[in-house]
């Protein structure tokens, strides 16, 4: 049994220690917001937070999350809309939408470290892949989220 906190709730899972966190979330805990894309930590669709840091959960052993706080897209706003999600809706970012939970989790982590990122800092930090090509909308939304978090209405 591996014990971890997921979206603020203590969860116990009966899974092999080397099972990736992504598949524990999707198969054992029925949290399907984090997506499976490439399986080799390249596309970022599976990004979640472990102790506040973004990780590519397809390549992160569940044993390494034992005793830690995991936050997924489902728990990001704690029942409300997170500022980044609000900015994403205002800017109508998603197209097919499959990669967006990963992008949003990566953007939240970026804004914690860098509250007012430049375009270059956004490009350097968000290395996720979007096949629809929503990158420019994502950049606009990150700037807008930075403004909301900075107190703008």
């Amino acid at each position, binding site marked *: 049994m591996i014990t971890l906190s997921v979206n603020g709730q203590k969860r116990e899972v009966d899974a092999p220690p080397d099972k990736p966190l992504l598949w524990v979330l999707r198969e054992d805990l029925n949290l399907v*917001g984090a997506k499976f894309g490439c399986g080799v930590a390249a596309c970022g669709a599976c990004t979640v937070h472990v102790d506040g840091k973004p990780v590519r959960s397809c390549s992160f052993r569940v044993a390494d999350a034992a005793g830690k706080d995991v936050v997924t897209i489902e728990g990001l706003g704690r029942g409300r809309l997170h500022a980044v999600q609000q900015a994403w*809706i205002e800017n109508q970012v998603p197209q097919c939408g499959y990669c967006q939970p990963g992008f949003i989790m990566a953007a939240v982590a970026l804004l914690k470290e860098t509250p007012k990122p430049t375009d270059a800092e956004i490009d350097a930090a968000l290395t996720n892949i979007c096949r629809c090509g929503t990158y420019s909308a994502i950049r606009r939304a990150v700037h807008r989220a930075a403004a909301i978090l900075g107190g703008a209405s």
Partner: protein
Amino acid sequence: LRKWARRSFIIGGFVGAGLLGVGFWFGRERDRLGSRTLFNVRPGQAGLNGWVKIGRDNNVTVAVPRAEMGQGIHTALAMLVAEEMDARWNQVRVEDPPEDAVYRNVDILIDGLPFSPEETGTVVDVAHWVAGKLGGVLGILATGGSTATRDAWLPMRTAGAVARDLLLRAASRKSGIAVDQLTIVDGEIRRRDGTKVATFGELVDSIGDLQPMQEPPPLKKPSEFKLIGKPLPRVDVPAKVMGSATFGIDVRLPGLLYAAVRNAPTFGGEAKGFKLKKDALPKGIEKIVIVSGGIAAIGTSWWQANAFLDEGVDVDWQAGPEPKLGSAGLWTRYENLLAEGKPALTRSLGAENKPATTQALEATYRAPYLAHATMEPMNCTARAGKQGLELWMPNQSPTLMRLIAAEAAKVPREQVTVHTTFLGGGFGRRAEGDLVRQAVACAQATPEQPL
């Protein structure tokens, strides 16, 4: 090559059969209206026709029989209906309707005809006409080729206009005010002087036995459009931002099993047989199944099943007809065809107008075979049992998927149901049915259990 040949054959068949059967007329907008009970009408809702229903919660739900893969088609199609019935945009919802011929895509067949856009003339016109009629008869649900809005433009606006008329008559019956004294503004029935008569939600129980009118009312002129042509918030964005949008890979059913598939390493290859590296299957792996074009491991975890295919199974692969096919060989073939093959299409740019001095420029342009790579891996959820076959999948043609599934399962088409989820990318890859055959084979190996 095989695909193109198949498509030409199908379309050739349509045109041929159509030429023999000239004299019938299908495909009028009113024939695509659908009955008031067609569109999943639930308690607290009233169907207005096959394309739209209203609810006591004042929601207007529009049937969107095309796949949402990021192109915004759910939003665009909902706009067509909402515009003509004068609904308020924030009361509009969308839902995947059941498969029925009224939701067919006539335009995709016209678009698929083997003529270039430059070609005109009687033969082409007749072929287009026949394909239009037969598309209607055959009822193909499909999304692709930028055809969805073109196809829906008249039928869905007509459905909105017919729904508006029905609401006005229901409001008249409920209020005793003559129909010609009533209008709809912003999703509300009002008197001509602007006073409110009823919301849509308040009319759910007043529609009773009223039927859609037979001759559709006139549609709006473009200058009267309030929603069409305006940038409106997309209907699918909130769920996609909250992480609650259900893609095919997110379908969860009670007792769900997972199958991981290893496809043959060469085009057209098959798994001839396999050997387990250890005698018994480990806990969590239930079955190994040879499927068309590959082999699948079935178990309680996709991750475990996928790893087991690498670690626990030796597969005896039978190579496809072209085991050495690769990019370099393809270029050689293309070049040989260019040199010796018969032209498929020649274009004339009109009369030559040579300048006084000329210089010959020579260049070779190569465009690669593009990967139809979707962000969401190809997937299909299936349950086979006494009740028939049920599929949940991100796909671009439920009609085609149903045909392929019925053929693979050897059951009548009527026993197959296909549910279309959000698509994490489409690119035409999701109009292919290879994985349906694989999913059906796996589902039949675990009867009554969803997989």
